[in-house]
């Protein structure tokens, strides 16, 4: 007998929308998330301090509060400040093991929606491990969660999120020192053919154009087609060096905020053994899902950016669709009811997805980021360079998992979250194969570290103590 009908991991827009929709459909729902309040990363802290900074963060951000209050109005069990570190899937449903307040517990559910969202694409550059280098997402989180801003920051990379952050820092009265944009006219030209299809999502597109206009009005130095980025400093960031417009430049700064787009966080989906596919447009792996978000495992759904990058509005729509499909599967609603309620989110999802080909083509990560130079650290946790990965590849590591047999790349606490895609790209380069053939790290529980004490407390009485192997 399962504890709940539906477990949802992640309380961002997809998870929140799924929870509310599932509750409306009559399911008994548990929503688990690492943060103390709902909102995920995009709407982080929107129901607490973040709301006070609404004028800086923008109305899109404030809208997120509605998703949180919609869930609060239901009887969804919202389990906060909780880290889910193990998921097992069987014939009857799923079991999640999680830690909260220093002790571990298990929860069983008949169905599961993974809504764990996205991570920033790793941006391995010389000096990217120095204190003072953060992701653009981290820059936004500091603003949302604590109203903290960098005093002398350079934004480096490309993509809408970087421009949004720039505009937010301008509004906060602390404009960045510069925007070092690895994108350029060539990318826009390459993306232009996809623009007509993207116009279905014209509202979001015009917001993007508005952001760039705001940055121009603020007279933010904007260096385009930047190459050969190097972050300098001994114990912390001191400057960023790059070439742009045929000149080498060096900007003194205290903080560098990096961004090359976001990619699905596939740790949970991989640990469940779900099928994944390489997305050539977004240059990342994502779980295989059908039109409702159901994965290759029956009753396990993936919704939101974790299933493929499409943004917060798309995530909300996808969350609703997954919840409706789960409710139908558990016989809480019939097919007609499911399809009726699904009509509006499906239209919304299609409109938001229509933008993606254009946006992805307009902000591709440069090759130097995908395949960094030998001296660049690739695995931050174990401090392993691109050169070492290439050398191990030449010594017989045909894939990421064989790489782990040679050394500790991917075996630190982050478990390959910030090196996995780079490793796949480097192996693809050395072996002259496509990333889809190379594959990705095998992900095992615990998804996040858990203490031995907590794990031991879950042992059934009189645990078998194995005899050492003869």
């Amino acid at each position, binding site marked *: 007998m399962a504890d709940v009908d539906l477990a949802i991991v992640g309380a961002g827009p997809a998870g929140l929308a799924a929870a509310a929709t599932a509750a409306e459909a009559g399911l008994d729902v548990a929503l688990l998330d690492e943060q103390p309040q709902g909102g995920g990363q995009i709407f982080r802290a929107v129901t607490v301090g973040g709301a006070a900074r609404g004028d800086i963060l923008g109305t899109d951000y404030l809208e997120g509060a509605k998703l949180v209050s919609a869930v609060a109005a239901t009887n969804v069990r919202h389990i906060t400040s909780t880290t889910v570190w*193990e998921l*097992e899937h069987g014939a009857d449903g799923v*079991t999640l*093991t999680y830690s909260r307040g220093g002790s571990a517990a*298990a929860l069983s559910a008949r169905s599961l929606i993974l809504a764990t969202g996205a991570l920033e694409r790793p941006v391995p550059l010389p000096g990217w491990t120095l204190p003072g280098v953060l992701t653009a997402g981290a820059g936004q989180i500091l603003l949302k969660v604590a109203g903290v801003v960098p005093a002398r920051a350079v934004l480096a990379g490309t993509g809408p999120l970087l421009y949004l952050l720039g505009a937010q820092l301008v509004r906060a009265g602390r404009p960045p020192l510069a925007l070092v944009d690895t994108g350029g006219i060539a990318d826009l030209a390459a993306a232009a053919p996809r623009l007509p299809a993207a116009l279905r999502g014209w509202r979001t597109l015009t917001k993007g154009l508005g952001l760039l206009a705001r940055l121009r009005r603020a007279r933010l130095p904007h260096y385009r087609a930047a190459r050969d980025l190097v972050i300098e400093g001994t114990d912390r960031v001191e400057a960023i060096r790059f070439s742009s417009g045929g000149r080498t430049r060096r900007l003194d700064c205290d903080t560098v905020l990096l961004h090359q787009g976001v990619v699905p966080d596939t740790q949970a989906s991989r640990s469940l*053994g779900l099928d994944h596919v390489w997305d050539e447009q977004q240059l990342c792996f994502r779980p295989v899902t059908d039109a409702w978000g159901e994965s290759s495992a029956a009753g396990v759904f993936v919704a939101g950016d974790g299933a493929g990058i499409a943004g917060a509005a798309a995530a909300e729509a996808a969350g609703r669709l997954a919840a409706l499909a789960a409710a139908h599967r558990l016989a809480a609603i019939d097919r007609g009811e499911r399809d009726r309620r699904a009509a509006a989110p499906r239209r919304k999802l299609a409109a938001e997805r229509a933008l993606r080909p254009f946006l992805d083509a307009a902000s591709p990560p440069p090759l130097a980021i995908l395949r960094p130079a030998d001296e660049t650290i690739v695995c931050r946790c174990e401090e392993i360079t691109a050169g070492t990965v290439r050398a*191990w590849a030449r*010594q*017989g*590591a*045909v*894939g*990421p*998992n*064989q790489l*782990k*047999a*040679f*050394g*500790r790349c991917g*075996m*630190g*606490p982050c*478990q390959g979250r910030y090196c996995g895609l780079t490793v796949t790209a480097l192996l693809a380069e050395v072996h002259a194969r496509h990333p889809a053939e*190379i*594959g990705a790290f095998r992900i*095992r*529980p*615990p998804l996040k*570290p*858990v*203490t*031995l*004490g907590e*794990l*031991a*407390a*879950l*042992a*059934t009485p009189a*645990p*078998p*103590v*194995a*005899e*050492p*192997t*003869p």
Partner: protein
Amino acid sequence: MQAEYAVIGGGVVGLSVAWGLLTRGRRVVVIDGGDGDYRASRGNFGLVWVQSKGLTEPRYARWTQRSAAAWADFATELGEATGDDLALRQEGGYDLHLDEAALEAKRRAYTRLQEQLGGDYPFEVLGHNALRREEPEIGPRVVGGILHRQDGHVNPLKLLRALAADVRRRGAEVVNGETVTMVDRPAAGFRLTLASGGQVEADRVVLAAGLGAAALGPELGFRAPLRPQRGQVLITEKLPKLINRPSGLIRQVDEGGVQLGDSKEEVGFDDRTTLTTTAAIAANAVATYPRLAQAQVVRAWASLRVMSPDGLPIYQRSPTLPGACLVTCHSGVTLAAAHARFLPDWLEETAASPDLEAFGEHRFSRAPA
């Protein structure tokens, strides 16, 4: 590709044998499997372990001791060739016990073996207090342990990559990501067809493909009665030194993490970790070294041991295809030195050939396949 030896399998066993042959000046090609294969060399603990082996077959204990005695020299030569320190430590190891009766039973078994080996089996039984002097962090529930002076441990990742690098440096042809699909015998010698369509020709074949040998073994004249046995392992965040010597289930690796095992599960080709077992491993760890309760587990994994029916290695010359040999075991790290230094004499049938009769497949004649 034309070679004297084709070694099928590029894990620790295959590479150790290949390396040994290369140091004898032989031309070797190594055929290695793919990223998704069940590779025992990925999952092992890293023990160079003498105690508790061969309790019912003293010749296995002897073979293991020979390997352990040769390990230091092997590590030095391999380390110097590649510039990599394998972090071998042979300062003894423990078999720790939470139960007096089990400790006593082990002591009796070791004493019997010691007699069979003419006294050459240096172990001592340490009660709790004596153990505590050696291991200050040992917990109150540990009643004692057996310290065997010939035990040790090594960094298995460094071993594997040093072997992989040096085998290439010494001129072996290595093909990765391949499977052998067919074997035929044009005149003398062997022709191996690979899944990719390529072919390898060699005078002799060494089948060291672990669990993969079950498929190819019969074609080469072997019974290869191998089965997978799952073992699960945990590793913690890097910690300051708190464990001095390894035990069969717990060791602190040179890079600082504490590695914890293990289990022996008969679950077929299933290398998933399970909460039940990892929790039991954690409980044992905390009972043995209580300070570990606050240590974070950063990773768990499971690997499939390559088990013969009696747990002993198999060294067998093919009765039907002269020139083909089967080499398989589940203690590939412990036996790496023997495979590198002594097995080539057996493969070449020199005067120094070790007597490996005890490990032939004839012993399975009445055992189920």
